[in-house]
């Protein structure tokens, strides 16, 4: 390091610009407390401040910004879902995504790649035609294509998949994209911070004060906060928070694992998903292959990863792309996915007045980040669910009116 740089380091006239303001103390009360500084929580804070002018907001985070599932997903963005509720909701999200980099003045590396969901059986192909028709009805660009189109888009693929599960066709979704996931949390966080929202990292929620069915405050590891509104956006930790307010839900937690390979030259432009082989793969801007599989088979509240996962995923990956046999796996990790029985989220109001839920994001939460922020901020302000999320209420289970989102996760359902 050149020594003259030290002059700047020691000079108070040239402070290092920080992305987030550091707050020494919590205030004694806030209009809204958001638990979880991941993409969803920060997006809600951002839209509360930007669209509704509510800035006396505090975001509490046990760990660090974007350290949960926001930084653990495989960064895929798409809207080719199956139910009308899902399609409309995710389509709104994709539209928001396209303007985010400009909105934040931060490059999210949003890259439109095209997304193929491969069909290896007649029944899979039938579901894809159904999805394509629902999508087209709502004006979303999806179509069923033949194997030759897949081969053209990814010439290295073995269309027979080692001879035992030949690709019969695919659902092609041209708007399918990837984005740099950490930057999404940073962008929302910085935008909220600049508008006066306080983000408190390393602050754990220990309890929620409920009196007469209403939220009165939040007990944290750094003191008590009085507030009438709490938004819970903590993905895999949701059941721990729900225990504090005694709200029952169908949420259950399974780990979801993913891995990346060493960086290689660009060879794969689109995003490929195979439900039958439990594989999804895309190539990042750095050249790493980002790969995921299905949920771990049993409940666990931890983020350990396993060798079984790498073995299983690699086996199937090699059936699709035999030439990858020499490529090394660089990292693997896991996130805690909060699953629901119908693969649709649980969003909106709860039996506790002033306690709002943004949960049930299982394996499909990243792509929904912008629209969740937008609809949850609307719900918090107006105390009625945003029209786009009425199909996702907690009430639907008590009424036996499930949403049945089979297009939810790419694989394994």
């Amino acid at each position, binding site marked *: 390091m050149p020594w003259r740089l030290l002059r700047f380091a020691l000079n108070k006239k040239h402070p290092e610009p920080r992305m987030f303001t550091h707050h020494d103390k919590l205030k004694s009360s806030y209009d809204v407390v958001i638990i979880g500084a991941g993409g969803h929580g920060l997006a809600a804070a951002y839209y509360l401040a930007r669209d509704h002018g509510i800035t006396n907001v505090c975001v509490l985070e046990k760990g660090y910004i974007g350290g949960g599932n926001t930084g653990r997903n495989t960064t895929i963005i798409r809207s080719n879902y199956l139910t009308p509720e899902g399609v409309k909701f995710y389509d709104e999200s994709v539209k928001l995504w396209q303007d985010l980099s400009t909105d934040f003045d931060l490059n999210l590396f949003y890259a439109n790649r095209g997304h193929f969901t491969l069909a290896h059986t007649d029944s899979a192909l039938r579901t894809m035609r159904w999805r394509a028709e629902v999508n087209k009805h709502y004006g979303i660009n999806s179509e069923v294509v033949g194997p030759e189109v897949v081969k053209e888009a990814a010439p290295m693929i073995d269309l027979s998949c080692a001879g035992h599960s030949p690709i019969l066709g695919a659902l092609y979704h041209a708007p399918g994209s990837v984005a740099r996931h950490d930057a999404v949390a940073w962008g929302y966080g910085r935008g909220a911070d600049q508008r006066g929202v306080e983000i408190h990292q390393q602050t754990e929620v220990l309890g929620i004060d409920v009196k007469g069915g209403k939220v009165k405050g939040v007990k944290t590891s750094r003191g008590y906060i009085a507030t009438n509104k709490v938004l819970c956006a903590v993905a895999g930790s949701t059941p721990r928070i*729900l225990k504090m307010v005694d709200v029952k839900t169908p949420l259950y937690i399974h780990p979801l694992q993913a891995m990346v390979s060493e960086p290689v030259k660009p060879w794969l432009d689109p995003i490929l998903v195979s439900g039958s082989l439990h594989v999804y793969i895309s190539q990042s801007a750095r050249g790493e292959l980002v790969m995921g599989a299905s949920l771990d088979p049993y409940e*666990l*509240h931890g983020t*350990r990863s396993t060798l079984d996962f790498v073995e299983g995923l690699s086996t199937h990956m090699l059936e699709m792309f035999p030439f990858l046999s020499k490529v090394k796996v660089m990292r693997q990790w896991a996130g805690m996915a*909060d699953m629901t029985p119908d693969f649709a989220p649980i969003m909106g109001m709860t039996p506790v007045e002033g306690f709002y839920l943004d949960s049930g994001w299982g394996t499909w939460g990243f792509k929904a980040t912008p629209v969740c922020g937008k609809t949850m901020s609307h719900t918090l302000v107006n105390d009625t669910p945003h029209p786009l999320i009425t199909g996702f209420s907690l009430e639907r289970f008590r009424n036996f009116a499930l949403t049945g989102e089979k297009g939810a996760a790419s694989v394994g359902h």
Partner: protein
Amino acid sequence: MKILTCPLNGPRPVSEFFYWGEVRPMPDPATASDDAWADYVFNRNGAPGVKREWWCHTPSNTWFIAERDTEKDVVLETYFYQGEE
């Protein structure tokens, strides 16, 4: 490879086992209210802790109970179902 102990076959790789969730008493469908039934059908205790769970060793189709800490990922005990106390 994780190892789980089947009460019949002894320690086996976890990939031979099938997980069927927490042991939950079923209310009488004929007399339960709609709310109580919906609660049984859908709601789960999703919070971490020590849970009694149904597991099955699939090659031998042996169903049994495992007591497992779902936060630490440790199996405390496995045994055959003896009915509810």
